[in-house]
């Protein structure tokens, strides 16, 4: 229990450090956050343009689709803030030989490296996602109580994104230079950018039960809008947890493979 408490203290310190780091260049941080915020606002504009010349995606009205996209931006923002730095931290510390130090800490290596990767840049995306979702909510009708499973599903979506990063980082131990794995992750995420309805039956199944990208956007938004039932979402949560388990196993395997640069 004390070690958990200690770990949270380390997390707090790491987050505070990240803050201090960014605050050294306040203007730059402000512009960076503002640009990420504004950059994501292009997303609903694009959807509005598509819906202005067509009937859009079957079964999804314009505002429903904007809610869907805002949800995805929230998930990506959360991932960017808390989890995305893991890959960079891993690659750099393995390259520089400082990973050995991590292994000496009295915490789980994964949790520790993740906490060091905290990145304030995600705040702009996160806020932009919230703004888009709130905007869409004003135009839509939904049961308020559904906000609870909505938020839980969003957290599960972020867990899925985290799992992907853990897997990519595990590979980083085996092939040190793997920056482009990031692009593989983002290519997979692209499948989550649109409602499942556009895909074929087989693909829908894979995106829910194989690589559960659908949890990052489709399931939270569909739950809130009543397009998917709670029981279906519960079933869809299982593959996310299994995926997370696999990611943890990958990390553990990578740890056994890790042989220091000898520094």
């Amino acid at each position, binding site marked *: 229990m004390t070690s958990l408490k200690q770990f949270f203290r380390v997390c707090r310190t790491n987050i505070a450090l990240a803050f201090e780091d960014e605050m050294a*260049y306040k*203007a*730059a*941080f402000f*512009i*960076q*956050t*503002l*640009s*990420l915020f*504004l*950059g994501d606002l*292009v997303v609903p*504009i*694009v959807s509005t*343009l*598509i819906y*202005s*010349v*067509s*009937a*859009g*995606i*079957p079964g999804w009205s314009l505002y429903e689709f904007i809610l869907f996209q805002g949800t995805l931006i929230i998930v990506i923002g959360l991932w960017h803030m808390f989890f995305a730095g893991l890959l960079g931290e891993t690659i750099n510390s393995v390259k520089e030989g400082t990973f050995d130090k991590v292994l000496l800490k009295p915490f789980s290596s994964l949790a520790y490296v993740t906490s060091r990767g905290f990145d304030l840049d995600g705040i702009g995306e996160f806020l932009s996602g919230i703004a888009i979702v709130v905007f869409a909510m004003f135009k839509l009708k939904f049961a308020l109580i559904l906000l609870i499973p909505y938020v839980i599903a969003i957290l599960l979506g972020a867990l899925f994104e985290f799992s992907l990063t853990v897997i990519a980082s595990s590979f980083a131990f085996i092939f040190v230079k793997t920056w*482009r794995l990031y*692009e*593989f992750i983002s*290519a997979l995420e*692209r*499948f989550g*950018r*649109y409602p499942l*309805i*556009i*895909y*074929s039956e087989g*693909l829908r199944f894979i995106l829910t039960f194989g690589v559960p990208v659908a949890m990052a956007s489709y399931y939270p938004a569909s739950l809130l809008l009543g397009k998917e039932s709670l029981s279906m979402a519960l079933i869809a949560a299982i593959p996310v947890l299994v995926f997370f388990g696999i990611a943890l196993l990958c990390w553990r395997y990578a740890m056994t493979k890790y042989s220091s640069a000898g520094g």
Partner: protein
Amino acid sequence: MSKFRGMFKTAAKENLAYKFDMMLTVILAPISIIIFYFLWKAIFLNNATGIIGGLTFEQIITYYVLTWLIAILTWTDIGDIISYDVKNGNITKNLILPISYLTHCFVYNLGSRFISLFVEAAPIVILSFIFFNIQIELASLPFFILSTILALLLNFLMTAVFALSAFWMTNNRGILKLKRVFVHFLSGAVLPLSFFPLAYQKISFYLPFQYLEYTPIGFWLGLYEGNQTFIMLGMQVVWVIIFYILCLLIWRRAITKAVSVGI
């Protein structure tokens, strides 16, 4: 001239070392195209007419493949290079080269694009011809090539203008990112300009953005006829000249700034 040839060769060789990294694009691009294919298939099925925003389904897929092609052929990392060189003081080393810093960067860029043409662009186009049935207007191919070269020049100069802000700011990542998102959107790289409101379509003729993406694509699709061909190419040349002058002016001021802080 031999100086340029030497630099071009070095850049090409350097990039050849990353050929496997580049080939990843050949896997990633089709994933994006497949998702886009599903998306538009669903939208077209949901629509009463076979034409959306003035384009047929085949044309819109061709359009999307071409946005990839143009993005690869006109790609530049001048933004990151300038920011990095200014921050680390490398810029002083480059100032003593027998040719101007920006020319040096451009020749380097050209070398890397030459390799990409074969490693990234060609396979994507061939795959798209086989699997996505993309269309081409052969008669306008020479204009497409000319227009793409002008777009590369324009993209390089425009990015350089924004990147030179590094001389005045400690961290210009935000500005570069914002520029990327908005220019990307306004150039027609996300959606064809025919999806935009009429007012923007009219104004865009006088703005530099569409000459980065929409115009070269327009040539491939055979959208321009007779005089229009030369008007569009002429506009591209005009914008290249404007940004060239802008770049020189800012560069001159930037250099005095660099000297004044003593690096």
